[in-house]
């Protein structure tokens, strides 16, 4: 029982840091290694840790599966949405130059937006995969 207490407290301390790290990876992706994909995986890892320590039931309460699916779908839509927006603004599909008066600013916004899309999708999908596998009760043979 003591182990679990340590585990829980450890996790409680660790999870905010993991989330923070994920955000760092997301937004520092322009300057160092990292980006939406890695950040998404780390985000998901935080929830996986939560679910492992506090049980799937509690994890599902914090983050209902439905929300996870929505994330998975939403990210793709964000990414493609950027493409449609650039198109509406008169550029080619995913031509970020048109997002701001200054092309390099436009590139920044665009990259930020699509990385966000990647983050949301990857996070959603990874947690959804975990839920799907962990949530399936073993049927004894």
């Amino acid at each position, binding site marked *: 029982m003591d182990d679990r207490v340590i585990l829980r407290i450890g996790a409680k301390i660790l999870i905010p840091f993991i989330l923070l790290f994920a955000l760092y990876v997301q937004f520092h992706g322009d300057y160092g290694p990292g980006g939406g994909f890695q950040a998404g995986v780390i985000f998901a890892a935080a929830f996986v840790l939560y679910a492992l320590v506090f049980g799937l039931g509690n994890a599902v309460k914090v983050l209902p599966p439905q929300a996870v*699916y*929505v994330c*998975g*779908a*939403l990210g*793709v*839509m964000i990414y*493609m*949405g950027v*493409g*449609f927006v650039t*198109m509406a603004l008169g*550029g*080619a*599909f*995913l*031509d*970020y*130059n048109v997002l701001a008066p200054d092309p390099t600013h436009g590139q920044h916004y665009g990259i930020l937006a699509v990385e966000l899309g990647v983050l949301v999708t990857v996070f959603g999908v990874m947690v959804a995969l975990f839920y799907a596998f962990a949530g399936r009760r073993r049927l004894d043979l």
Partner: protein
Amino acid sequence: MSQHLPVLLVAVPLFLAPVAALVGRWKLAWAVAAAGCWWAFAASIMLLRRVMDEGTIHYAMGGWEAPYGIEYRIDLVSAFVALIVAAIGAVVIPYARTSIAKEVSEDRGALFYSAFLLCLSGLLGISVTGDVFNVFVFLEVSSLSAYAMIALGQDRRALTAAFQYLIMGSTGATFIVIGIGLLYVMTGTLNMADLAERLPAVSDNRTIPVAFTFLTVGITLKLALFPLHLWLPNAYTYAPSAVTAFIASTATKVAVYLLLRFFFTVFGAAFAFEQMQLDMVLMPLALVAILGMSLVAIYQENVKRLLAFSSVAQIGYMVLGISFGSVLGVTSGILHLFNHALMKGALFMAMGCVMYSVGSVRIEKMAGLGKVMPWTMAAFVGGGLSLIGVPFTVGFVSKWYLVQAALEQGMWPVAAVVMVGSLMALVYIWKVVEVAYFQAADPDHQIREAPLSMLVPTWVLVLASFYFGIDASTTASIATRAAETLLGVGL
């Protein structure tokens, strides 16, 4: 809007895929999927017309010019293949509404239609892209969704079939990635046109032939050319009917397109046929596929399985056409790609109707169906006639060109094999027809004709396979022009 058509063709259905997954209710998801499919169909028609009028269309993604960015490069071949894929999608989707609601549970409808859209947009993406790595990405989009859809079949063997497909498909994809890598290391580019320009300078290097080999083997796995076809019969047999109809008429066709694209655009016919002696490998395999797989088809007791083996044989026809390496040969390959999509789609959809009403597609269960399900079985006969290659059907047109291509090169034994293959088609189609028309139905079974929502799409394909068999000049001239584009002659 119209200058964005190339990307919208792919992006709209791809965007609608998550939408379909989100709407939740399966009927709504179906509507979203239908919108995506029909949009793709309309867009592909417009694209084909534009390509025919204006020539090759370029579209630079993100505004980055090739080779620095990814470009969509749509020539006649691409546009034609995209049209085939989109057309089949547009026909299958109304069919799927009834068929899938029965064969797959309704609560998975939303996800299913999402997967359907992903598969469609993946296949469309492959057919219009001008970047080799982009091919791989969209190949995986379509493949992953196809694996999942196949696994939804009611028989538990659908699961093993999907797994087998996944293993072989991923192996193929990995081979393709290796091939792309070897090309890249020698040229530094991933753009097809740029590759074509840079390859001749380095083609004496051992790396390029090996890259060629890996790409060929990888695509051949996806294509299910004998002897790498092992995944196909199970996958087609146990997948839900609508999925079989869609995958059978599109996935392998797009793989054939890839083969054409790599052989003729990227490597060039001279390299593929003179340096690599491609015809020496492909032609025997194609001939064995035609004869061997038709023979195996004759002995099948499950009609979907029978048609699946017939598909492997028909793929042999397409590859045979390509292996001639001549304009006429490639024309026949492209033409058969279109024609086979029509007829196999019709046949598999007819079998879906049987599955719907009878619950099985084993031959012995089809006794007397000619009387109780006249429209379904008439559609089967219609598609079957096309498979045999009777005049006024698309199958005849394919054979006309294929035999011509063989005779042009003085290979009359090859022409004979083509004919023997179609006679074997007669045997396996007739096997089904006899049971359906000459045996009495089991009076205990209350079998009704399939609903109109399934019959109409089936008949659309049957009639199309007659229409394009009677008036083949449009398709034939497009195919000829496409072949000329690929081989770089007559321009």
